[in-house]
């Protein structure tokens, strides 16, 4: 079962799918965008993560298309996946809030 905190690739994949169904290559480019090019998922990593997420019921198949004679399969977030991402966002937000507050106390910027 997927446990919190989510590992970064998992978090980014779920975030990429939060915008709507995407295919494998779409997720890869989106993850690179979201992370400012810091995380570049390769196909092996992406599909191992997707396989686990599908097994855990956080992500499911959406539809298939044939584009330029190549199969393209779309994945989407399940309600459980959205809930999991929301929990992770809440968890991160609460820790970053505390960190920001403490930084302000010692006179850091903001």
């Amino acid at each position, binding site marked *: 079962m997927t446990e919190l905190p989510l590992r970064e690739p998992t978090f980014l994949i779920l975030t990429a799918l939060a915008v709507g169904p995407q295919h494998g290559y779409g997720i890869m480019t989106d993850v690179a965008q979201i992370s400012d090019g810091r995380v570049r998922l390769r196909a092996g*990593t992406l*599909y191992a993560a997707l396989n686990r997420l599908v097994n855990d019921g956080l992500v499911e198949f959406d539809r298939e298309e044939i584009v330029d004679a190549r199969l393209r399969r779309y994945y989407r977030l399940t309600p459980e996946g959205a809930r999991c991402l929301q929990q992770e966002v809440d968890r991160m937000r609460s820790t970053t809030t505390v960190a920001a507050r403490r930084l302000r106390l010692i006179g850091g910027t903001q």
Partner: protein
Amino acid sequence: MTGAGRTQKAGRAMDDRFRASDADRDRAAALLRDHFAAGRLDAAELDERLAMALNAKTFGELHRVLADLPEAGPAQQQPNRLPPDRGRLERGYRCLLACYPAAYRRVHEEEMLAVLMTAAPHGSRRPGIGEAVDLIWGAVRVRCQPSRRSAEPGWRDPLAVVSILLPLIVFITTAVRVAGPLHAILDGAPSPFRDMFPLWILNQFTGPVALLALSLLRPQRFATRATVTVLIGLTYLAYLATLSYLAGGPDPGVVSMIAGGPYIMLALGLQMAAVTASPGLRRGLQLVTWKQAALTVIAAVAVAITSYPWTLAVISVICAAMGLTSSRGRWLLVLLAIPLGPYVAVPYTYVIGWGPHMRLYVTWLMSPGALGQLGQACVLAAVFLGVFVVAACRESLRSRQLARPSR
């Protein structure tokens, strides 16, 4: 014309004043994401346009969102002008994808290939090292992930067979190993085991009996199984300690028995796994064939008598030939090879020679002879791996041949 392109065209043929449906908005959003994936939109533009598309009331609004984007799907801009080395690249990727389980490949091979080919840098003729390592590691991860469908025969069925064959192997190897000293004791020859004969026999057969009991009783709860396994292991170790005490020090015979300790422990661990994850003894009995059982008996006897790595290599090839045709057979082979493995790491004299030259296991490991043995173990591992790869390639070839007519 692609599915995506067609829907878009159909959309544009509609009157702009018509009201858009949820499906229309979703289609427009999907097109936007495709264009984003192709790099025509950045993340901010995508978010902005998605919001517009999802709030659109009419076709006119949807068309405005898509107005400055080409009609065809994003992968359409390079229709059928694949340079010849793309074919080579594709073959390279297919070879790497052969590492994935067959059931997984049936669903994902074409899809992953599409992603790999799109992501490959222009002009690359073969998969990069990083990509190759990532794919192989991904295959390992996918193989280790539990499947949601328990009907997946990859792991569980071979374990059911193992839970039957493993006690058989251990029984036979133990019986053969005990036979020599037992004969000597009955003949009245001096033997380190003379004074502790009953204890020794009890010790030797604890392992196999425990293995059989685990597979027959198959305790329902994991905690029970774990407790039983640990207790058996501890009992075995206690016997060894007692024997070693009675023998009054590191007697060669006792030492050789201690060397057999890891073997029993390994077998216990494997049996525990087999009993935990297998679909049960009944399923195992359905699956196991006479050929498998006979070959297992022959292999166990040969290994126990000679304890010679090359014998094991030959046997592994025979077993491989028997299991080549299915992934189930290959898993069975690997699982059964685990408890046979320690024999490779133990000197030949372990079974047939009770000579005084055999000292503590550790001393032996330090000796130059150990290096030779290590080399042989490596050769054996290479034989195993080679057989495995050949089997995987054959299977992938066959599955592709099967898939071709349907395409």
